[in-house]
């Protein structure tokens, strides 16, 4: 808390986010230093975005990074306009927005959802500020908006996409406020769970009217070196910034490792921004190291994988740390090694291995063995959830994780001995 009391800290955090924005723009130009950067970006805006579509395959590496920079920029502007402080929750939200712009979000498909969230706040006669995180997270259903924009016949498509986005933005905050009761904070991607349920409902209704959500996925392998350099620069920058903000010893940092990570574990509020930034760098590094270790199996960084690294890094400000993510990742890896249906280097499995870390609080609260079990179970369940919402929920792993919690947490609590209290 003391670190937050120094007035400049918020400005410093804001500068870090602006630097991230600059980094994305710089690498966008480096990757596509010609007009194709803009034509590629436009192509991303008007293309399908369901799971798993790589915008780097659609418009090019640079165009996808430009898209991420712009989505981050808009989100940051909204946060500033609403005068929200940069807490761990805000950092997690912004990193997720930037990351998922590399896996389907774009300025066109998120706009109607954000307006829907604003309408929700108007309806409840409250400030939009209160709903900003829920609304921004809610843009994970943006592929549905893109799908209608492309597949509905001309003349109706803009109306269809706008209506769909407004409905999502309007309904999702209500569902997302309820879902913590189900997983009780053990799923860090709460809105992913809520969006999975809403997506399931909407996809079923659409299916009843003859609209079947199916997307041809894409997966690029270009730009590996460039993306590695970008990620290393980002993580090194976070580490340096954390050290500069006061996290200069193991004793200081290890306070973060003592949290279970169960929501709400806002590390900026609990341990200050210095330790948080160092933790973000370390968690991101674990994800990157895992992917690089799979290089001999043909794994190359691309949009969806960088998205996962951003998600891991961002949520290291809000619950994840090395001690609680490693057991869960290990469980997911064991599952993928044992099951022939899920080869370890296939796109969906790679995403699940990195994003199953949203179950890290289970390891943090109940110990590493249950963490491994959660990761294992997640890897099996997530293979079957995408079909329920037609691949339209970008936070499919959050949806699966909610189901894992529903299945696992009551069992754990029933077999765990009651804590001794005096």
């Amino acid at each position, binding site marked *: *808390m003391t670190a*937050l*009391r120094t007035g400049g800290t918020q400005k410093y955090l804001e500068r870090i986010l602006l630097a991230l924005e600059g980094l994305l723009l710089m690498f966008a130009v480096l990757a596509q230093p010609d007009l194709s950067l803009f034509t590629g970006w436009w192509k991303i805006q008007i293309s399908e975005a369901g799971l798993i579509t790589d915008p780097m395959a659609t418009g090019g590496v640079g165009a996808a990074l430009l898209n991420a920079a712009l989505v981050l920029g808009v989100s940051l502007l909204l946060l500033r306009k*609403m005068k*929200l*402080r940069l*807490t761990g*929750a*805000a950092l997690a939200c912004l990193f997720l927005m930037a990351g998922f712009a590399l896996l389907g979000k774009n300025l066109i498909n998120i706009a109607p959802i954000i307006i829907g969230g604003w309408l929700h706040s108007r309806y409840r*006669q*409250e*400030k939009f*500020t*209160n*709903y*900003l*995180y*829920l609304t921004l997270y809610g843009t994970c259903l943006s592929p549905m908006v893109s799908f209608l924009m492309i597949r509905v016949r001309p003349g109706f498509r803009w109306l269809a996409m706008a209506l769909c986005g407004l409905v999502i933005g309007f309904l999702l*905050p209500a569902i*997302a*406020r*309820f879902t*913590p*009761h189900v997983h*009780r*904070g053990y799923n860090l991607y*709460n809105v992913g769970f809520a969006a999975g349920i809403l997506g399931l409902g909407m996809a079923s209704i659409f299916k009843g009217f003859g609209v079947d959500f199916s997307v041809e996925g894409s997966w690029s392998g270009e730009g590996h070196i460039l993306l590695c350099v970008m990620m290393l620069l980002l993580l090194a920058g976070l580490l340096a910034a954390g050290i500069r903000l006061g996290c200069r010893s193991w004793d200081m940092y290890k306070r973060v490792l003592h*949290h*279970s990570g*169960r*929501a*709400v*574990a*806002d590390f900026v*509020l*609990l341990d200050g921004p210095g330790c948080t930034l160092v933790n973000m760098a370390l968690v991101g590094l674990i994800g990157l190291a895992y992917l690089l270790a799979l290089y001999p199996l043909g794994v190359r960084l691309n949009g969806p994988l960088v998205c996962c690294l951003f998600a891991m890094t961002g949520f290291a400000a809000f619950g994840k740390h090395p001690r609680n993510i490693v057991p869960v990742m290990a469980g997911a890896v064991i599952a993928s090694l044992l099951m022939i249906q899920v080869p370890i280097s296939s796109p969906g499995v790679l995403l699940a291995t990195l994003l199953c870390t949203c179950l890290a609080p289970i390891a943090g609260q109940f110990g590493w063995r249950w963490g491994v079990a959660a990761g294992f179970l997640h890897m099996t369940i997530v293979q079957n959830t995408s079909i329920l919402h037609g691949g339209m929920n970008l936070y499919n792993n959050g949806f699966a994780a909610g189901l894992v919690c529903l299945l696992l947490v009551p069992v754990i609590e029933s077999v765990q001995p009651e*804590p001794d*209290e*005096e």
Partner: protein
Amino acid sequence: MKKRMFRVRRRMNLVISELNNALLMAGCREIGLRLVREEQGLRLYIQGQYAPEYQHSVERMADLLQPEFRDPALVETYGELTGSEQYPRDGEIALVGQMLSDASVTVAGGWVKMDLYLAFQQ
């Protein structure tokens, strides 16, 4: 903005539940609560006598209940997680701190005294 008695009453219940648990876990032998409905909000006074070995955790609680700034979006997103857990942690106390409109907490002589306020208009 609308005056929100219903919501504030619900939130106050969550605050009371969370702090009751936290104080009992801090070894309190005696906890006094007084809830006052004022013109513009609800005010909660809590007094608790804690065991000396919990000095640090009570001070930490005081710190988390009086944050430098409050994030209303965090409260709207995760507020429902407070109050239901039997074993409160720092994170939930921090969330309670974020929920409050104003808080004054003093820790001295084995006693913690809290003056917590939730305004109807937020």
